[in-house]
C-alpha cells in the first residue's frame, strides 16, 4: 500500500519547449502545469490511486486535438484523454504522468436530426444536457448513467457506460452510430456514420468501451430513442435481501423486461432517506425500484404481473408512484444514492461486478459474508435486472489498514463473480483498478489477441498506456512506470 497516495509529478518528462508548443496550440488559458493546479487531476472517481499528470490541456476543437497528439508523438510523451473524471475505475488516471487532454470545452451539440433519429455531439457534452436539449421533441438519449448530470458523452463512449434504463434500452454501444477519432498517431478518421449496415468491420462498436486506448473521439453520432408514452414506477419493500433477489430473478425469468429494476439495501436506504426524506421504510432489508414503460394500453398489465411476482416472493408491500413528481423523486433518490453515502463514511469504493441474473441471491449472501469476514461495512445499490451489482465498501482513506481490508473484500467479491460465470465489470471499465483481474477472466491467448487489436489502433502505445490489458503498452513505452500503487502493491 506504500504508494497509494503517490502524487509525485513526473514533470521532468515534459520540456519547456513542449509546454510552449501546447500554449501555442490551445492558448495559455487552456494549459495547466503548476503542481497545485494539477492536483484536481491526480485521480478520478476511483480515489485510492493517484498520479499527477505533467500537464493538463483543454482543447477547443478537433484541430487542436490533432495538433496536441502530433506534438506528443514528436516529443515521445504519453497522453490520456479525460472527460468529467467520473470514472470509478481509474480510467482517467495518467499512469506514468504525461499529457492529459481534457475535452470538457468541446461540448457543443452540432446537429440534431429527428427524421433520421440521430444527433452529433462533441465529446465533452454532459450526458444529461443532450436529453434536456431534446425535451419536447419526443426523443431522448437512452444511456443514463447515475452520474449523467456530470459525466460526458465522450467518457461514456470510452467506458461503454450503462445506467438504470439500459436493462431495456441497451448500453452506450447500442446507441452510438459513428465517431470522429483522432488516432494515436494524429490521423483523423471517421468510423461508422448515419447510415446503418455499412460494409466492413464495425469499428464504431469496437471503439466504444476501449477506455481511451484506441484514440480520442472528437465527435460522437448517437442514436435518438423515442420517449415512452407511459410509465408505471413501483417500489417493492422486502423483509430480506433474499426475498428481493428472488423477486428479481422471477421477473426476468418470466420474460418481463422492465425499463429498470434497481435494488437498494437497508444501508443505502438509510443514507438516502436521511438525505432526501422520501419516506422509505428504514426497517426493510431491501427495496426494489421497478419501472415499466411503453404503451398506455400495456403498462398496467406488466405492472400487475410484477406486483404479483413480488407478492409471491414475500414482499411486505409494493407502492406505486402516483404522480410524476413522486416518480422523479424516486429516481432522484436512486441516482443520487452515491452522493448520500457521504453520510455513512468518509470514503467509499464502489465495486462493479456482474453475475447471471439467477445468481443474484447467491452473490448477495457472499457479499454480506465477505464484509463480515473482513470487517468492512458494505452497502448495495445496483442494477438488479442486468445482474450488475454495485457493492459499496465504506472506509476511511486515512487508515491504510482499512484500505487493505477493503481491497481483500473487493477481490473476494469479484473473484466470486467470475466463479459464478460473470464478469468483474458491467459498466465502470477495467481502468487501472481491475487490470489485475484480466488474467483471471481471460486466457493469455485472449489477452494476446486483444493486444494485437490494440496494436492496430495504437501501435506505439502512447495513448492511455498501461490501461485495460495487463501487458506492456507497447514497444518504446517501457519507461512508463507501472505504478498501480494501490492494488498491485497491496499485500
Amino acid at each position, binding site marked *: 500500500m506504500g504508494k497509494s497516495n503517490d502524487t509525485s509529478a513526473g514533470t521532468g518528462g515534459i520540456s519547456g519547449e513542449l509546454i510552449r508548443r501546447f500554449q501555442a496550440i490551445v492558448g495559455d488559458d487552456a494549459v495547466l502545469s503548476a503542481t497545485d493546479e494539477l492536483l484536481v487531476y491526480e485521480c478520478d472517481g476511483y480515489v485510492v490511486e493517484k498520479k499527477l499528470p505533467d500537464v493538463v490541456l483543454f482543447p477547443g476543437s478537433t484541430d487542436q486535438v490533432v495538433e496536441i497528439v502530433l506534438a506528443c508523438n514528436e516529443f515521445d510523451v504519453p497522453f490520456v484523454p479525460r472527460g468529467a473524471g467520473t470514472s470509478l475505475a481509474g480510467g482517467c488516471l495518467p499512469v506514468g504522468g504525461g499529457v492529459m487532454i481534457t475535452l470538457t470545452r468541446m461540448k457543443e451539440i452540432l446537429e440534431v436530426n*429527428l*427524421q433520421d433519429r440521430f444527433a452529433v455531439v462533441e465529446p465533452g457534452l454532459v450526458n444529461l444536457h443532450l436529453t434536456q436539449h431534446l425535451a419536447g421533441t419526443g426523443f431522448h438519449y437512452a444511456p443514463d448513467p447515475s452520474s449523467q448530470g456530470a459525466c460526458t458523452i465522450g467518457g461514456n463512449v470510452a*467506458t461503454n457506460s450503462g445506467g438504470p434504463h439500459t436493462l431495456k434500452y441497451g448500453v452506450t454501444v447500442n446507441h452510438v452510430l459513428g465517431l470522429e477519432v483522432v488516432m494515436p498517431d494524429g490521423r483523423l478518421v*471517421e468510423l461508422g456514420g448515419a447510415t446503418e*449496415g455499412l460494409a466492413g468491420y464495425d469499428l464504431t462498436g469496437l471503439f466504444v468501451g476501449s477506455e481511451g486506448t484506441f484514440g480520442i473521439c472528437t465527435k460522437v453520432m448517437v442514436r435518438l430513442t*423515442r420517449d415512452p408514452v407511459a410509465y408505471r414506477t413501483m417500489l417493492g419493500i422486502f423483509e430480506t435481501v433474499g426475498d428481493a433477489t428472488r423477486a428479481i430473478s422471477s421477473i426476468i425469468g418470466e420474460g418481463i423486461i422492465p425499463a429498470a429494476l434497481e435494488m437498494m439495501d437497508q444501508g443505502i436506504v438509510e443514507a438516502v432517506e436521511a438525505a432526501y426524506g422520501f419516506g422509505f421504510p428504514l426497517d426493510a432489508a431491501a427495496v426494489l425500484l421497478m419501472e415499466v414503460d411503453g404503451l398506455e394500453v400495456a403498462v398496467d398489465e406488466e405492472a400487475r404481473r410484477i406486483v404479483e411476482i413480488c407478492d409471491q416472493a414475500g414482499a411486505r408491500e409494493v407502492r406505486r408512484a402516483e404522480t410524476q413528481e413522486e416518480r422523479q423523486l424516486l429516481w432522484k433518490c436512486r441516482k443520487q444514492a452515491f452522493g448520500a453515502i457521504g453520510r455513512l463514511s468518509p470514503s467509499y469504493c464502489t465495486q462493479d461486478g456482474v453475475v447471471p441474473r439467477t445468481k443474484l441471491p447467491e452473490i448477495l449472501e457472499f457479499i454480506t459474508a465477505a464484509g463480515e469476514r473482513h470487517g468492512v461495512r458494505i452497502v448495495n445499490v445496483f442494477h438488479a435486472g442486468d445482474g450488475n451489482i454495485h457493492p459499496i465498501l465504506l472506509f476511511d482513506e486515512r487508515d491504510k489498514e482499512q484500505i487493505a481490508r477493503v481491497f481483500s473484500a473487493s477481490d473476494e467479491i469479484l473473484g466470486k463473480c467470475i466463479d459464478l460465470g460473470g464478469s468483474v465489470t458491467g459498466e465502470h471499465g477495467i481502468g487501472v483498478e481491475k487490470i489485475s483481474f484480466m488474467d483471471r477472466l481471460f*486466457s493469455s491467448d485472449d489477452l494476446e489477441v*486483444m493486444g494485437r487489436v490494440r496494436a492496430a489502433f495504437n501501435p506505439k502505445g502512447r495513448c492511455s498506456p498501461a490501461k485495460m490489458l495487463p501487458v506492456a503498452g507497447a514497444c518504446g513505452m517501457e519507461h512508463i512506470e507501472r505504478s498501480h500503487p494501490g492494488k498491485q502493491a497491496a499485500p
Partner: protein
Amino acid sequence: MNDPGKPISRAYDEIVPATASELARLLEKNSSGERRPLLPVGGRTALGFGFPIARESLEVSLGRLDQVLDFPARDMTVTVEAGCRMGILQEQLRQEGQRLPIDIPMAHRATAGGVVACNPGGPRRFGFGTMRDYVIGIGAVTAGGQPFRAGGRVVKNVAGYDLCKLLVGSGGSLAVISEVTFKLKPVAAASALGWACFDQGAMVNDLLTDMSTSQARSVAIELLGPKAARQISAESRQQLPEGPLLVGVGLEGSRAEVDWQAEVVERELRAGGANNVVWKEEAAAVAMWSALTEFQVGAESAVTFRASLRPSRTVEFMTAAIDAGVAVQAHLGNGVVHGHLPDDTLDVGRACSIIKSLRAVAVSGGGQVLIERCEPGWQPELDLWGTARGDWELMAALKKELDPGELLSPGRGIDGARASARPIETNEVGVGG
C-alpha cells in the same frame, strides 16, 4: 444465374473438426505447413458473397460443432457452438418462450457462426436492432490456430475489448468463429402487418415524418417496389394491395398492444393518403415476416445489392431503383435496401450502368451500395463496396494484425474491397457531415 447458396468455385478439400481444440490444432498445422487459404463454412447460405474463392482454398466446416452448450432460460442467454443451425436453435428457444429477434434468411440452414460472420437482418431490425446488439460472448480461432474469447455469458460486461463487435459482420476474414453467446428476448404473443399503397414518393416521405412521432411503436416499416411486392406476395401466398409504392408497418407485442397500435397505424396510413389498409395477422403475419426476410436471397438475379442510406433519403433511392427496373425492398425505418437487378441484365456493362447511377444517388445522401452477389467474373468491374471510405485503412490494419499471413477468406473482406475500390472522394459525407 447464380444460386446465392453456392460458392462460385468449389474448393478442393475441407476439414471438419469435431471440437474447438481440434479446429485450433488443424489451423495451426495449416499455418505452419501448407499455408492454404481458408474458407470458414457454416450452412453454405452466403458463400456467394464477395470475390471468388481461390481454387486452392481449404474449407473449414463447422458442421460438427453443432451443440447448444448452455441455455439457462431464466437468465435469457444461450451459448452455442458455431455450427448450430439457427432454425433448430430458434425452435429450442421458442419452447421456453424466448427468441433471438433477428430475421435470418434460410435459417434452417444458416448456422450461428455464419450469421454472426455475415450479419444478416430483416424487417424487424427497426424494432429490435441487429446482430451486434445480441452477441454478448464469442469464441474464435485465428488463422494461426490461436483460440481466443471475448465478452462472456452475462448481459452486461465491459471487461476487455469488445471483439464480439469486431467479429460480427467480419465475413470470416479475421478468425473462425467457434462459439457464440446470445442474449435473448421473449417471443411476442401477437403480431400484425398493415399494408397500404401510395402513388408518390413524396407521400411516403411525409408519412415517414409523421410516423416518426407516432403513438405506436412499430417493429418494422417496409417499403416495396412493384416487383418486390409481387415476389413477396407469391412467396408468402398473401394477397397484397397493388400500386407503385407499397408500405408495410409491422407490430408485435401483447394482443392488447397490437390491437391498439393497429388502430393508430391505420389512422396514420389513411391520413397519409392510403385508400385501403390490408392487415395480415396470425399465420398470415408469420408467412409475411418470412417472405420479407427471404427476399434478399430469394431471387435468381445476376446482381444482388444492399444499400445503406439515411431513412430520409431512402424513398428517393427506391424511386430511382424502381425506375431502373430493379426489384427493391427497403427496411424504410432503417434506410437499408435490398435490390435485385432486372432479368434483362445480361452483361456486366448493363449491370455497371445501373449500379453506377444508383451509387450516385446513394453517395449524394451519405450512403453506400454494396454488391452482395453477382455473376462470376463481374466482381472487379462492379467494384463491390464502392468508393473507399476513411476507415478502410484501419480495417486493413486489423486484418493484418489478426491474419498476417492473409490466409482467411482472401479477397472476401476489406482486402478485396481495397483492391478494387476507387480512391476516397473529397465530398464524402461522414460523421457530422
